[in-house]
């Protein structure tokens, strides 16, 4: 029987409808659709997809179970390696990881591995199931995990499964890190994050919110109570361009814009108390996933015009193709080869105009992408009432600044041994964006796993 060349289609909300709500856009597979898609998997003997997965999921394994209709076993295989499958199935860049190396993908569209992962995780939730895996005997050792984002949650759950006592310290009032403040509701419903966090708690992990390590207690103080510390505090320091007028009212960092909407639910103001300015002419500066999230959020907040202002061309955009396509479908306007140089405000100090300059592409820079060069005298102005600066984030400096002995790199990232997550301070490990700079959820999870293994080794042997 011939294999279908395309992935089994997945229903989604149509663009005109979905910009009026914050609900998920792709609606998931039905069991029949999932089995159909699972049948496309060639069940390769030496699966390259597994190598492409940062947490080494047994991909053909779980897909085979879906094909059989044994969804319970499929999710068990998934959770053996990945404690947050409902999240990864939604936000992983599968096209750069497992699906990129799929053998079927050489000739046709790869197997929809991400869609199947999501299906299995959502199926388990719908059944009201939450199977707890086997937990090793208690070791009597205690580990403090700083940060409840993907790195921290994963490190904590792995350590808990190994029998260690784990406490996660989270600075915000809700756990999840970037999962709860950064990724919008329409890409990752917060109910799902809550469910995944509850799973981590069910493994025995304690989560303490409203606790800022570095302020409420330092890492050194934690080391007096705990046998090891894992730092997963992420890259939450927003970048600004430092151009004239950038402090006018109405100009936000992407972090602020997204925290208001995603974490504080400002789109439900005044039922929820946190406000947000619902701009009509919104400009989002940047070309990554965060910029796409901000531009699509602006539409949902009622923007008449939501624009992406990017200094390179479409081909160089770092955002996932899927996110760019969704943004285009929804009506986001893309201004490529454009760079803001200055903002103008009205008499109340509110931004009203953005002056930009046109760019052209020159030789590649250190990132391998062609360097954008301003075209002299090409300045022009765009009317705006809201600007979101989504040009990137740096590792949060609080912990390095308040902990003696932790070495950081040029960009504030904590220096770690790639194979163990060890920092330069005895007993302290780190992983995720705090070590790599802003990256992905799945890479942070991979780092959490690597560190958990090394922490377990350190706690058992005492050898640093």
């Amino acid at each position, binding site marked *: 029987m011939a294999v279908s060349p395309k992935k089994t289609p997945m229903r989604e909300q149509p663009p005109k409808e979905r910009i009026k709500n914050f609900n998920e856009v792709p609606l998931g597979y039905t069991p029949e659709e999932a089995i159909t898609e699972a049948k496309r998997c060639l069940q390769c003997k030496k699966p390259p997809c597994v190598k492409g997965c940062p947490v080494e999921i047994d991909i053909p394994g779980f897909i085979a179970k879906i094909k059989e209709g044994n969804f319970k076993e499929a999710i068990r295989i998934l959770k053996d390696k990945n404690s947050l499958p409902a999240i990864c199935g939604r936000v992983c860049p599968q096209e750069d990881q497992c699906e990129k190396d799929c053998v079927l993908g050489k000739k046709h569209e790869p197997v929809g591995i991400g869609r199947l992962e999501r299906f299995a995780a959502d199926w388990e939730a719908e059944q009201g199931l939450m199977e707890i895996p086997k937990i090793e005997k208690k070791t009597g050792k205690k580990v403090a995990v700083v940060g409840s984002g993907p790195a921290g949650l994963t490190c904590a759950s792995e350590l808990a499964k190994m029998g260690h006592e784990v406490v996660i310290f989270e*600075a915000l*009032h809700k756990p999840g890190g970037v999962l709860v403040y950064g990724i919008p509701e329409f890409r990752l419903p917060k109910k799902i994050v809550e469910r995944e966090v509850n799973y981590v708690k069910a493994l025995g992990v304690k989560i303490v919110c409203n606790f800022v390590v570095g302020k409420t207690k330092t890492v050194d103080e934690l080391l007096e109570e705990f046998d090891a510390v894992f730092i997963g505090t992420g890259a939450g320091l927003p970048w600004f361009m430092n151009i004239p007028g950038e402090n006018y009212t109405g100009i936000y960092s992407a972090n602020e814009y997204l925290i208001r909407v995603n974490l504080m639910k400002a789109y439900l*103001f005044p039922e929820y108390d946190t406000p947000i300015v619902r701009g009509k002419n919104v400009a989002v500066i940047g070309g990554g996933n965060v910029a796409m999230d901000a531009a699509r959020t602006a539409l949902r907040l009622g923007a008449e015009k939501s624009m992406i202002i990017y200094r390179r061309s479409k081909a160089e955009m770092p955002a996932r193709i899927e996110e760019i396509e969704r943004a285009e479908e929804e009506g986001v306007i893309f201004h490529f080869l454009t760079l803001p140089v200055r903002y103008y405000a009205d008499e109340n*100090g509110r931004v009203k105009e953005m002056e930009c300059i046109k760019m052209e592409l020159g030789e590649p820079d250190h990132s391998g992408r062609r360097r954008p060069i301003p075209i002299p005298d090409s300045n022009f102005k765009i009317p705006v009432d809201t600007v979101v600066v989504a040009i990137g984030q740096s590792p*949060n400096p609080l912990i390095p600044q308040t902990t003696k002995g932790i070495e950081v790199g040029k960009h504030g990232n904590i220096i770690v041994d790639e194979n163990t997550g060890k920092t330069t301070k005895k007993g302290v490990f780190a992983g995720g964006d705090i070590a790599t700079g802003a990256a992905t959820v799945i890479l942070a999870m991979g780092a959490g796993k690597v560190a958990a293994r090394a922490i377990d080794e350190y706690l058992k042997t005492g050898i640093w």
Partner: protein
Amino acid sequence: MAKILKKEILAPNIKKFIVEVPEIAKKAQPGQFVIIRIDEKGERIPLTIGDFDREKGTVTIVFQEVGKTTYQLGLLKEGDDILDFVGPLGRPSEIEKFGTVCCIGGGVGTPEIYPVARALKKVGNYVISIIGARTKELVIMEKEMKEVSDELCITTDDGTYGMKGLVTDALKKILDTGKKIDRVIAVGPVIMMKAVSELTKNYNIKTIVSLNAMMLDGTGMCGICRVEIGGETKFACVDGPEFDGHLVNYDLLMARLKTYLEEEKISLKLFKEKMGIQ
């Protein structure tokens, strides 16, 4: 969760809570603040730490009811819980023996300057304090300020108590006596801190102000609290909240504080209607 142990009404629309938060009480320093959220739908707001008791494990917050959240906060009773309470945030005040210091509290800035004045006195400074309010019934913490100051001057705009005038009038009077002041610390409405700084510039006195920028996370993640200090952008939550008063762009701060004026009015109106408050 933070339990309210004691509630006191200091003046019309100015309330004081003593809250049980042992870990914050252990670490709190003068000049620092906390961020609180009353309930699940609430917003996060910063409140300066007015006092702390490391033994009892408590922190004191004093707030003025100006918007929905502070009005809602003011309705809480002893025994109630505040859902989220995080700190201590911000950089502590610089407490050193400077010599003679002048601590100025305007309105609800007085409970904020109190721990600073106390700490400065403890390390051997001669403390001259000025506290100002619009009218007699809004003068708060006179007794506490007297205990930590070598000299205390009270001003009211309408002259119903103490000296008639603004805190800057009292400050100018002191400066004109020729007394040497080594440092001025002023906390209060932006317009007051601006006026104090403009005055002390003429006398070349180092002046520290505590900027009440809007905040969201309070840990340096979002940038809403951006202020301009000497032309450079700083985050009030992690670089401040205290800054050199002569370098602050006050007009920018005042403009940024108005970002949500419309939304704030709506929130407060709806809340007052719901609670039947005038």
